[in-house]
């Protein structure tokens, strides 16, 4: 399975997503500390803003991609029987896709509201 698996692309993406996740986390922290929306309605309005919702969706995707590459690295290192590795990769991949879809659905609902 590793014949076509990427090395450079995964490595570069891991670093790229790390930078975005780091920067956006800092932004989130600053918002929470200094400009936290007051109450549920204000949170919805903040998250429903066009810039924030897109940036948040990108953030979720970046976290999931970063997690996928990291977990894949751990499994390549430690789990050598190919069937077990494939099963674990499949299960974790599905879970990450489900999480991504769930987050996207939540953000779309907030936008529509």
């Amino acid at each position: 399975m590793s014949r076509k698996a990427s090395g450079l692309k995964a490595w570069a993406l891991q670093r790229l997503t790390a930078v975005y996740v780091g920067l956006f986390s800092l932004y989130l922290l600053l918002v929470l500390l200094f400009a936290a929306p007051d109450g549920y309605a204000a949170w919805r309005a903040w998250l429903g803003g066009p810039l924030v919702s897109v940036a948040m969706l990108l953030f979720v995707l970046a976290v999931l991609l970063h997690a996928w590459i990291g977990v894949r690295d751990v499994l390549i290192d430690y789990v050598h029987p190919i069937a077990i590795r494939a099963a674990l990769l499949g299960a974790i991949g599905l879970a990450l896709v489900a999480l991504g879809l769930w987050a996207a659905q939540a953000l779309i609902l907030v936008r529509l509201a």
Partner: protein
Amino acid sequence: MKFLVSRFNPDADARPYMQAFEVQVQRGMMLRDALLEIKRLDESFAFRHSCGEGVCGSDGVNVNGTNKLACITPVSELKEPVEIRPFPGRPIIRDLVVDMTQFYQQYKAVKPWLVRNDPMPEQEILQSPKDRDRLDGLYECIMCGCCSTACPSFWWNPEKFHGPQALLAAWRFLADTRDQATDERLDALEGPYKLFRCHTIMNCVEVCPKGLNPTQAIGHIKNLMLKNAV
């Protein structure tokens, strides 16, 4: 001085065990001298050594948990009892002697020689002093194996991951302005295993008896790959 030495005779022992030796140490004694002394006490004890001055790279062993060259390690620096084991992660042939076949295979796999497509010149291929300086810190490797056998990534995937030694050698030829196989070399390193099993753990840097930096070399390879890809 008290030494605990790992012993293993494949014909007699199910698994390695530690045997204690008391060695009379002298001023300026190196660990290799202590091992020779132990061999005098018990001639069935086996370890590799040759030049005795950190040049041949034969007597790499694991001392108190760290890979070192016995011949350039003063015993006065070591904490008692000194525990001496073979390189971790390698199949043991006998006592401190391990099978380094995979280590050499990984070295061979990076084609550690100059590749020229142009016809060979009549005389030597010229290189500016500045270009020559790029090879400092790369060519000095004596292939003792301290780095690769200290690398967890090499422990887990020694048949697929090149390991720090071979990757240092790979960068030595990528960095050489006389070499003309940059693209082929980089293509050969692609994929998740050969190069990208390195997770910048840096055990290699910590143990290299020559003070070389394989992690930095690996970083240079990754950056060059990225530069050539975008």
